[in-house]
């Protein structure tokens, strides 16, 4: 049976992928390099963040209701180590993607908003890597 934190990791991973896909539906990748400097871009971004937070809160509440004892249990040493290892990998993903992405998009004629999207995209992909790695370590045992 999955631990509480593994279930949370699954919840966050699925939500992040869902939000990323939803974002791409509103702002296609072709327009990401040089999106119009309109307010709607910011609106889409805020909507995505609000959707993510709302889904996370709902998932958190549902999981706490379903397994209240597990939810109260503090993280143990193995779970903390898994988090540290996953974050270390996610950090490299973020640095490589954001620096590489900025370099490439600058040469492709991206504007400031486009560069901002590259950094944001790198952050989201790094978080996806973070939670995917957590699940991998939880499944493997360590």
């Amino acid at each position: 049976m999955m631990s509480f934190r593994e279930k949370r990791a699954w919840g966050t991973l699925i939500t992040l992928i869902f939000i990323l896909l939803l974002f791409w539906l509103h702002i296609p990748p072709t327009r990401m390099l040089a999106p119009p400097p309109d307010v709607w871009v910011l609106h889409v971004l805020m909507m995505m963040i609000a959707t993510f937070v709302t889904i996370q809160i709902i998932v958190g509440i549902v999981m706490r209701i379903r397994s209240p004892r597990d939810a109260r249990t503090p993280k143990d040493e193995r779970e903390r180590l898994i988090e540290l290892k996953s974050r270390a990998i996610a950090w490299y993903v973020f640095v490589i993607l954001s620096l590489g992405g900025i370099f490439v998009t600058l040469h492709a004629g991206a504007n400031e908003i486009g560069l901002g999207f590259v950094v944001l995209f790198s952050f989201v992909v790094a978080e996806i890597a973070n939670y995917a790695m957590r699940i991998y370590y939880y499944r493997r045992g360590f």
Partner: protein
Amino acid sequence: MTQEDLAARVDVTRQTINAIELGKYSPSLEVAFKISRVFGKPLEAVFSWPEPGEQGDDEQRSEEKL
């Protein structure tokens, strides 16, 4: 004693006890001492570390002992 009982007594999750049993995770000294105290046995009676070239691995040994 179930994994759940042992986990509750040493303040870790059941999944961590399972990972220790399967030899996938090496616990800290603190947890190792707590586990050995629960069983009322010395540390080396519960955990062991194979010498290089010894037959079998730590995974099997931990599993057998726990």
